[in-house]
């Protein structure tokens, strides 16, 4: 057993321990905190497997953004501090069944599994992206990514639908009271420019190196949220036409390129001659839409009258 094997076994044990802690935690807040730890450990696991793209997505979205969403939800649900959520045998059975089924599916895979790696390698020259992960996400399996973008948008529509009549169309979240020259105010002006550059860079390198619309978009969403929390900018009103155009631009451009694919023979088929600029355009616009959607999902429903 090499040192690397020992590290991997230790990492797996830590992941399992964190997962058990999430389920058996004493209270909601503790469970959510452990869920974030679990996500970060999973990120290391993806790095160990050489899947840096997935690691970035897991760290930014799985641990970071989902963690923030769950923290917000737990704060709203926690009526008696430290109260343990009630035990539901049906949910336990369902989760155990799904986990067991997934485990069985993985174990029963043919060994050695060839997978789709040779097929992806073979078609990479005409995919318009040097990074095989981006080639799969934006070209070979563009369908899935389009659906993901649509699901995010629908989730935000669902959150907005919860707003009461008098605040519909108004700004999301509450007014932030922050001293301009205070610690948070200064941080909120210092970090966003750097974070914005990092986010755009992650999208830009996505075609040839680990990165992409979801990872870069999450970074941009995070610094936008910070600027909002620090009182530097206000979230736009939900009724704003410009905001709605920004939110739907990504899925719309993606869908349009998909329809244009009919010219190359089928829905979502990219002509190899245009594949690279098309993928880059879709990624950039999609990243901005994803950033806006994720940030507004975290801020929540409109709370202030228009």
């Amino acid at each position, binding site marked *: 057993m090499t040192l690397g094997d020992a590290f991997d076994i230790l990492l797996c044990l830590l992941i399992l321990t964190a997962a058990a802690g999430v389920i058996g935690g004493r209270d909601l807040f503790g469970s959510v905190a452990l869920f974030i730890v679990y996500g970060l450990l999973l990120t290391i696991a993806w790095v160990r497997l050489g899947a840096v793209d997935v690691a970035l997505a897991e760290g930014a979205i799985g641990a970071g953004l989902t963690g923030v969403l769950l923290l917000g939800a737990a704060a709203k649900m926690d009526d008696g501090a430290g109260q343990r959520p009630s035990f539901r045998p049906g949910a336990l059975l369902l989760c155990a069944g799904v986990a067991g089924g997934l485990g069985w599916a993985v174990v029963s895979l043919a060994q050695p599994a060839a997978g789709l790696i040779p097929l992806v390698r073979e078609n990479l020259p005409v995919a318009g992206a040097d990074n095989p992960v981006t080639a799969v996400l934006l070209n070979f399996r563009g369908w899935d990514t389009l659906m993901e973008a649509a699901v995010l948008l629908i989730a935000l529509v669902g959150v907005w639908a919860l707003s009461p009549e008098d605040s519909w169309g108004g700004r999301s979240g509450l007014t932030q009271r922050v001293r301009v020259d205070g610690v*948070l105010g200064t*941080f909120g002006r210092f970090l966003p420019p*750097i974070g914005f550059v990092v986010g755009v860079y992650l999208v830009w390198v996505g075609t040839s190196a680990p990165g992409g619309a979801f990872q870069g978009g999450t970074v941009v969403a995070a610094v936008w949220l910070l600027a909002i929390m620090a009182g530097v900018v206000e979230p736009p009103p939900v009724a704003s036409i410009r905001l709605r155009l920004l939110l739907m631009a990504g899925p719309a451009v993606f869908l349009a390129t998909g329809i244009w694919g009919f010219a190359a023979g089928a829905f979502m088929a990219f002509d190899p001659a245009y594949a690279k600029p098309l993928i880059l355009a879709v990624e950039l616009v999609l990243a901005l839409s994803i950033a806006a959607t994720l940030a507004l999902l975290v801020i929540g429903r409109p709370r202030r009258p228009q």
Partner: protein
Amino acid sequence: MIADVITVTLISIGLFFFIAGTAGFIRFPDVHSRLHALTKADNLGLGFVVLGVVAQADSGWSVLKLLLVWLLALTAAATTAQLIARFALPPGERP
């Protein structure tokens, strides 16, 4: 070889600060001293780990990226520590 020795030494020093910070986080009695232990680990521990990795970097750009990671972690740790520390004060004593 020399680079490896430097890396192992610096990362060991960094790990010492992380272990000390973790011990302080578990053992210290109140929020403010625990914050002190945690930010010490972030600042010095991560600093030494980054310097240790810098010795293995193959280009100037990698060095700059690593130092940027440390700078960002420093700023974030200092800011959140301030915010948590202020929130932990009794309401009458908050500045």
